[in-house]
C-alpha cells in the first residue's frame, strides 16, 4: 500500500533530479554540438547581370574558404551564371542607385559623379555595353576578381552548384551549354531539404 506512494514520490524526485542535471549539462553539451558542426550556407541565385553575379559568388567563395559547406541553386536568370562562357552585362535600367564613375582619366575626372538619369542611359543604344565595360574596368582596377575567377575558386573549394531543371526547360537551354561541374539538375523540391539544413539561406 505504501510502496506505490513511495514509488510515485521516487519518480517525482527522480524527475526533479533529472531536470536539475539537464539544466546543468545541456547548455554546454549543446554548445559543444554547435561548435563541432560544419557551418553551412545555401544560396538561391536568381539574377544574371554582371552586378548581381558578384554577391552570390563572393559569399559562396568566402564561406567555402572558411570551411563551410556551400550549396548554390541557380534558377531563372541566375542560370546564366552556370554557362561555360559568362556573358553577364550590367544594365542601368532599374538600377537607380548605380553610381556612375569613370575608371580612367585624371583624378578629378574619376571622382566626378555623372548625373545621368539612368532611364536615359538605359535608352541609349549600346549603353549596356559601355556600362558593362566601365564596370569590368573599374573592378579590375580595384583588384576585384572577375566572375569567372570567383566561380572557379568556388568550384575548387567544392561548392555545390545545382541548376533548376524547370528553368533550363523553359528557357530552352541545353545542358551542354553549362559547365560540367554542375552537380545536379533538379526542381525546387529537391533543393528544399538542403536549404532547410543550412545555417544560412540567402535568396539573391
Amino acid at each position, binding site marked *: 500500500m505504501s510502496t506505490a506512494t513511495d514509488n510515485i514520490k521516487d519518480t517525482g524526485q527522480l524527475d526533479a533530479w533529472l531536470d536539475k542535471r539537464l539544466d546543468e549539462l545541456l547548455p554546454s553539451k549543446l554548445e559543444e554540438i554547435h561548435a563541432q558542426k560544419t557551418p553551412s550556407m545555401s544560396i538561391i541565385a536568381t539574377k544574371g547581370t554582371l552586378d548581381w553575379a558578384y554577391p552570390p559568388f*563572393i559569399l559562396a*567563395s*568566402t564561406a567555402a*574558404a*572558411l*570551411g563551410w559547406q556551400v550549396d548554390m541553386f541557380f534558377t531563372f536568370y541566375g542560370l546564366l551564371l552556370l554557362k561555360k562562357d559568362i556573358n553577364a552585362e550590367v544594365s542601368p535600367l532599374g538600377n537607380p542607385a548605380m553610381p556612375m564613375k569613370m575608371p580612367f582619366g585624371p583624378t578629378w575626372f574619376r571622382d566626378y559623379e555623372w548625373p545621368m538619369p539612368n532611364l536615359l542611359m538605359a535608352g541609349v543604344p549600346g549603353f549596356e555595353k559601355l556600362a558593362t565595360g566601365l564596370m569590368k574596368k573599374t573592378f579590375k582596377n*580595384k*583588384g*576585384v*576578381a572577375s566572375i569567372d575567377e570567383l566561380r572557379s*575558386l568556388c568550384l*575548387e*573549394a567544392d561548392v555545390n552548384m545545382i541548376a533548376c531543371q524547370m528553368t533550363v526547360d523553359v528557357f530552352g537551354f541545353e545542358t551542354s551549354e553549362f559547365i560540367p561541374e554542375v552537380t545536379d539538375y533538379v526542381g525546387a523540391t529537391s533543393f528544399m531539404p538542403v536549404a532547410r539544413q543550412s545555417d544560412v539561406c540567402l535568396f539573391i
Partner: protein
Amino acid sequence: MTNVAEKLDARGMNCPLPILKTRKAINQIKRGEILEVTATDPGSVKDMASFCNQTGNRLVASNESGDGFVFLIEKA
C-alpha cells in the same frame, strides 16, 4: 626571426581575393608552418583576423609596413 614557409603576395587584390588566396596557400603548407601574406586591401586587416579566428589558424602578427599590411599565420 619567425620561420616563414610560404609567402603570398596579395597586394592589389580586393575582397574576397586575399582571403581566398590565403586559404589556398594555407592548404599547401604543413601544420605549425608560417604563411606570410602581404595585402593592400584595408579590409583585410579585420578580415584576416576573423578568418584566423574562425578557422583556428593562429594570427601570429598583423603589421603595417611600406609594402602594405603584413600578416603571419601559423597553420593549425
